[in-house]
């Protein structure tokens, strides 16, 4: 009898289980069940989170090491490339038979291509790794566009295109080098894809800033592809000629740089009529005493007699520099370290003064860096003009040199840039 009663109670309980009701005990049971589920889920979630954290740390470490590897490789590749470019430039100055001149020209252009490709790869990895810090400063936009217009006018003319440049007096605030890459990419693309007609380079004032425009009379970009062209390895249409090398990374870089600089991009295009690429740059304000712009003079012997000291830990570079600078009529003294230069001066030329010091930023292991060398030599010779050369594209070094009133050139060194810098320093007088 008792057993039957117990069994009946248990059956009632079992059969009412799972029925959602307002009974207090059921509410308790429900709460226990929920708490258990929450506990299990929390545990599972925590484990997943821990795994995610580990995976993320691993991926970040891998990414960092990839970036470091690329930086190291590019640095090591830039050095010999730099030397090769200097030698080629020096060779071009020689009086060579016509076939040799043509060959030297080919070598030079090939090296130029390698350099551009390498630079592009390095840039995109640096942009992706987020290590690139923009160095924003005010400058007249004409300082950038005048040079680009000159450069691309010749390229356009070589393809039978006309480049129409509308000059602007506006001052903008941006990273000159990064912005130059953006506009350069626009111009390269415009020339690459336009069969005939003209290229326009100009500016339009906008609220709070300026829009730099590059227009062309090319085939235009179909609506559907306007996003795709900003992705890596995307190229539209057929390559026009075999000499036009590239990885299709141009606009991908433009997109990343615009993101870093916070400069909005704009693309307008009518298929069959042409395209217009634009980047919007905020207005800038020049400091009270604007630095004198380098005079882009180009007279054969303007540098003749200029005394230049070169400090670079790579003897190949020293040799290349000597060849190049001597070709311009400079008097050159090279050394692979500060100590070597000082020893050389003390032994052979005490009291010798220089007009310009060209110093590599990154000198031998354990040696003072280029800035320290410059400071030391300025103690010896106050007012010595300094140009720091570096393969490190960090904005920090550029801004350090600017603070000190030094020039700064990036490796691989372009002979034309070096020449302009030297001429500019001469024009600006001794500071």
């Amino acid at each position, binding site marked *: 009898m008792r057993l039957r009663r117990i069994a009946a*109670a248990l059956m009632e309980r079992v059969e009412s289980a799972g029925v959602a009701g307002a009974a*207090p*005990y059921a509410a*308790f049971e429900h709460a*226990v069940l*929920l*708490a258990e589920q929450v506990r299990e889920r929390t545990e599972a979630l925590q484990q997943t989170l821990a795994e995610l954290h580990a995976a993320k740390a691993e991926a970040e470490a891998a990414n960092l090491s990839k970036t470091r590897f690329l930086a190291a490789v590019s640095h090591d590749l830039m050095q010999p490339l730099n030397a090769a470019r200097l030698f080629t430039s020096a060779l071009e100055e020689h009086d060579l038979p016509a076939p040799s001149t043509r060959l030297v020209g080919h070598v030079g252009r090939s090296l130029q291509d390698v350099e551009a490709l390498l630079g592009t790869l390095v840039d995109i990895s640096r942009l992706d790794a987020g290590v690139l810090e923009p160095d924003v400063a005010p400058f007249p936009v004409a300082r950038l566009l005048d040079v680009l217009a000159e450069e691309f006018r010749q390229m356009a003319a070589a393809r039978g295109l006309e480049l129409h440049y509308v000059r602007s007096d506006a001052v903008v605030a941006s990273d000159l080098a990064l912005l130059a890459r953006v506009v350069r990419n626009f111009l390269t693309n415009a020339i690459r894809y336009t069969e005939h007609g003209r290229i326009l380079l100009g500016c339009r004032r906008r609220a709070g800033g300026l829009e730099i425009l590059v227009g062309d009379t090319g085939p235009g970009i179909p609506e559907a592809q306007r996003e795709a062209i900003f992705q890596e390895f995307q190229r539209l249409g057929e390559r026009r000629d075999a000499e036009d090398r590239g990885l299709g990374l141009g606009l991908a870089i433009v997109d990343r740089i615009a993101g870093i600089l916070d400069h909005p991009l704009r693309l307008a295009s009518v298929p069959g009529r042409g395209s217009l690429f634009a980047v919007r740059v905020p207005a800038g304000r020049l400091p009270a005493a604007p630095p004198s712009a380098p005079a882009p003079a180009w007279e054969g012997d303007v540098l003749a007699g200029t005394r230049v000291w070169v400090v670079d830990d790579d003897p190949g570079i020293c040799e290349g520099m000597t060849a190049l600078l001597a070709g311009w009529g400079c008097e050159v003294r090279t050394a692979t370290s500060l100590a070597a230069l000082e020893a050389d001066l003390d032994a052979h030329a005490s009291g010798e003064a220089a007009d310009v010091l060209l110093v590599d930023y990154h000198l031998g292991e354990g040696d003072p860096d280029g800035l320290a060398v410059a400071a030391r030599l300025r103690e010896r010779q106050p007012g010595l003009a300094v140009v720091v050369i570096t393969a490190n594209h960090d904005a920090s070094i550029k801004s350090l040199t600017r603070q000190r009133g030094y020039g700064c050139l990036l490796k691989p060194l372009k002979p034309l840039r070096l020449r302009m810098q030297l001429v500019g320093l001469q024009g600006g007088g001794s500071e």
Partner: protein
Amino acid sequence: MRDLFPASPRLDGTADEDVPLRTAVSRRSDPRAAARELAVELCHSELGFMLFFCSAEYPLAALSESLDAAFDGVPVAGCTTAGEITPQGYERGGIVAIGFDRRHFAVSCALVEDLSGFDLMRAQRLVDGLLDDCRDRALAPLAEHSFALTLLDGLSSCEEQVLATLDAALGRIPSFGGSAGDDNRLAHTHVHAEGGFHGQAAVVVLINTRLPFEVFTTHHLRPRDEKLVVTRADRERRRVLELNALPAAEEYARLVGLPVEALTPDVFARHPLAVRLGEAHFVRAIQRVNDDGSLSFYCAVENGIVLTAMRPAPLLEDLETVFAALSARLGEPALIIACDCFLRRLELETLARVDAGSRLLARSRVIGFNTYGEQHHGMHINQTFTGVAIGSRTATPDA
């Protein structure tokens, strides 16, 4: 300034930021004097909230007024107890309080008066209100860095539904709490909020802090082999009329080997019954023997539930292990706020271990009260030690 207490070192209105939580105790029976004594210890310019646990002996209306006057403008919440846990351990007949520094805690507090009508809609509104109130002052992301403290009228018999409903509305925010007591007289228990004491009511306190914390529960009871089946129950009154188809008191007395007349709370404390759900046992504490031979419980009962007889393992050793584990995870706690079932205290009293218990609680910086039931994540549980441990150092900022 408060000219009433010229001797107080904190009357200049400044507060030491290294003390996020202050505690105070008063053993004065006069409510005015007790409230002032607490205010001297706790009041400073950055006091944001005061939580207290008091003996049910106090004239409650007068105590409300005195607290109101002494803690002018500072929100105050609390409840009556079956014994207080002060900085010195177990006490009775007094009032213990915690002051929360607003630079470390954003606290919001709400009162629920109509417990039987507390449905999910109301719960959601209440929780939304608390979150909104906290949000402006929040010191850390609300969902991850907050916990809720519930104080319920311990004789309302509504705990299960209210808690399950509230827990659903709180979502991921952990909650714990206790049912108010009345020094084992089982007559009237009260919670305090919004300037007064209330019966048949609940107080919900939402606490947001940058300090690390952990809500926990523990008990020291282990299952025996004997099982009792509830064959008749009065769920409205939480009464079990029959166990194993025999009068409940009689069958329970047989289990513990005592005559029915000898069944007193200390026997209930040492011979608890529990329901097993999954791997866990949840004690269903017996409140008293009724004249009709039935047993009243402190929590919901139902026909057909199976009760497992439990035996106590050493209580203080279990507690010490839990405190050590908390310290290992959080660092030395600044404070543990505890809801400690009054049956546990009864067991310690029977075993003459109260002093040892007080020393352990004082050493572990526990402040709290003896309850008529505890709450943990929406569960109404009995004969446990349930609370929150609050670390003393801010955890390293989230990545």
